[in-house]
């Protein structure tokens, strides 16, 4: 296991000293206007993500982290600021930035294989090329044996692996993950976190990962962005210098998670004192 992991480590294509970041957000704001009241979901957020990086955005519910991800995905339009991807302003969604959603994003009328093929089909990849790519990513998430299964026959963890394969199959420049493991039970979550780490080490993908789970962030991220709500702002940015592959039960990861939690809690007390309490 350890041997395999370190082999994966050496295979990972590292990008060093890139001239410009793959993703660059400058002073990005987003408001949602409803009939009752206007809420500022994200205010003046600046963030850069380099190619090959694994960045986690952590914060309590309502801190705007999913909004931030949707802006990068091109699903939400921003109200102020600049969002650049690969040197160009983000205008709408595109297969270069694919989202893995929390749940219920697979198509029940398609079997596992056809679900993984979905993005390739939209992209216009045909015939042998599509078959080979689909096989490769089914293998990557260990679901080749279940390729004929329907979505409702899969466990929660398997569904998320199908989503991951579907997203990776179109070879996006950046993978956006919106609390992908939040709906899973603890054991399944541990397994999938480990698998994701391994896949990231192997493929060299760039990942922006949104979560409210600090242990998850400490395990996976190169860099953790801590966000606070009301309005959603970036409060801290923490580099995670831990060696890979990491194990969620080691002291290093647990201690680091505690450090992230302290950042979050410090703010929770502060805002509770000012009468804007929220639950982490």
């Amino acid at each position, binding site marked *: 296991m350890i041997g395999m992991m370190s082999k994966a480590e050496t295979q990972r294509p590292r990008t060093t000293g890139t001239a410009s970041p793959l993703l660059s957000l400058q002073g990005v704001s987003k408001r949602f206007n409803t009939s009752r009241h206007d809420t500022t979901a994200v205010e003046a957020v600046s963030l850069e993500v380099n190619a090959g990086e694994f960045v986690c955005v952590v914060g309590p519910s309502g801190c705007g982290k999913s909004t931030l991800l949707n802006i990068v995905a091109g699903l939400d339009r921003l109200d102020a600021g600049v969002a650049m991807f690969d040197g160009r302003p983000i205008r709408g969604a595109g297969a270069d930035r694919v989202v893995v959603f*929390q749940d219920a994003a697979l*198509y029940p009328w398609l079997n596992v294989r056809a679900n993984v093929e979905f993005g390739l*089909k939209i992209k216009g990849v045909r015939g042998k090329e599509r078959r080979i790519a689909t096989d490769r990513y089914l293998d990557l998430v260990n679901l080749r044996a279940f390729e004929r299964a329907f979505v*409702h026959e899969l466990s929660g963890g398997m569904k998320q692996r199908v989503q991951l394969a579907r997203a990776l199959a179109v070879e996006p420049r950046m993978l956006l993950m919106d609390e992908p493991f939040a709906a899973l039970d603890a054991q399944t979550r541990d397994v999938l976190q480990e698998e994701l780490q391994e896949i990231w080490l192997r493929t060299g993908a760039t990942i922006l990962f949104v979560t409210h789970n600090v242990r998850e962030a400490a395990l996976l991220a190169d860099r953790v962005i801590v966000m606070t709500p009301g309005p959603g702002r970036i409060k801290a940015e923490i580099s995670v210098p831990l060696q890979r592959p990491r194990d969620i039960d080691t002291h290093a990861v647990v201690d680091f998670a505690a450090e992230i939690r302290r950042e979050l809690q410090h703010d929770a007390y502060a805002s509770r004192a000012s009468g804007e309490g929220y639950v982490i």
Partner: protein
Amino acid sequence: MSSKFFTGANFWRAVRQVAFYASLLAIWQLLYKLELWSPYLFPSPHDVWSSLRSNIESGLLWDSTRASIGRLAVGFVLAFVIGMTMGIACATMRWVDETVGSVVVGMQSLPSIAWLPLAVLWFGLSPKAITFVVLMGSVWAIAISARDGVRNIPILQQRAARVFGASRLQTLRYVTLPGMLPSMAQGLKLGWSFSWRSLMAAELLYSAVGLGHLLQVGRDLADMPLVLAVMAVIVAIGLAFDRLLFGPLEGWVRQRWGLAQT
């Protein structure tokens, strides 16, 4: 397969059903023998059977059935195309729902036969008038279930398509149309049964070759066996379409979506 049939639950179910229908026939025959009503008003099962056979042999029943099903098919296909288009437009564009959508809901409460006077004035005494009534009978039900079908597609399934850069046409083809099938399986069945009823009502009121007209002929000639034979044919056609057309569609939906067998 066959050995399984003779020992399994299917076998006993078949036995029960045969016994049930046989006893219905027996009661019918008994009531006929008791001569409570005149044989003209209450014919025996055998009279109905011979009427059915002679009318099949003369080709009258066949021609009527063909004419009725032809009209039904044209009206239903038109209703399907128009209803799907209206339903999808209502579900995807708010201004269409606010305008056309309210008309659809209103029209759904109008019994389709109420369109017949208008249809006769517009199309004259022609089969077109009947086809129009059939169309009006089912188009609203199909439009409503198409709209609900699109609305019931989980938002993340629609977003996932956008994320992969799907065009509007690709989203329609790969997500909207298959995603609305659970609702459409119900909606088409409902629309079809509305069409079938509208057709019979229209054919009864306005003469053209058809099963409804044949019922009317039976009444005019006081030919009760013919009336009952035609009614049996109408029931049989209804059941056949239900089993052969909509049964498999529903089964497919249940299998893919993992819905419980009912």
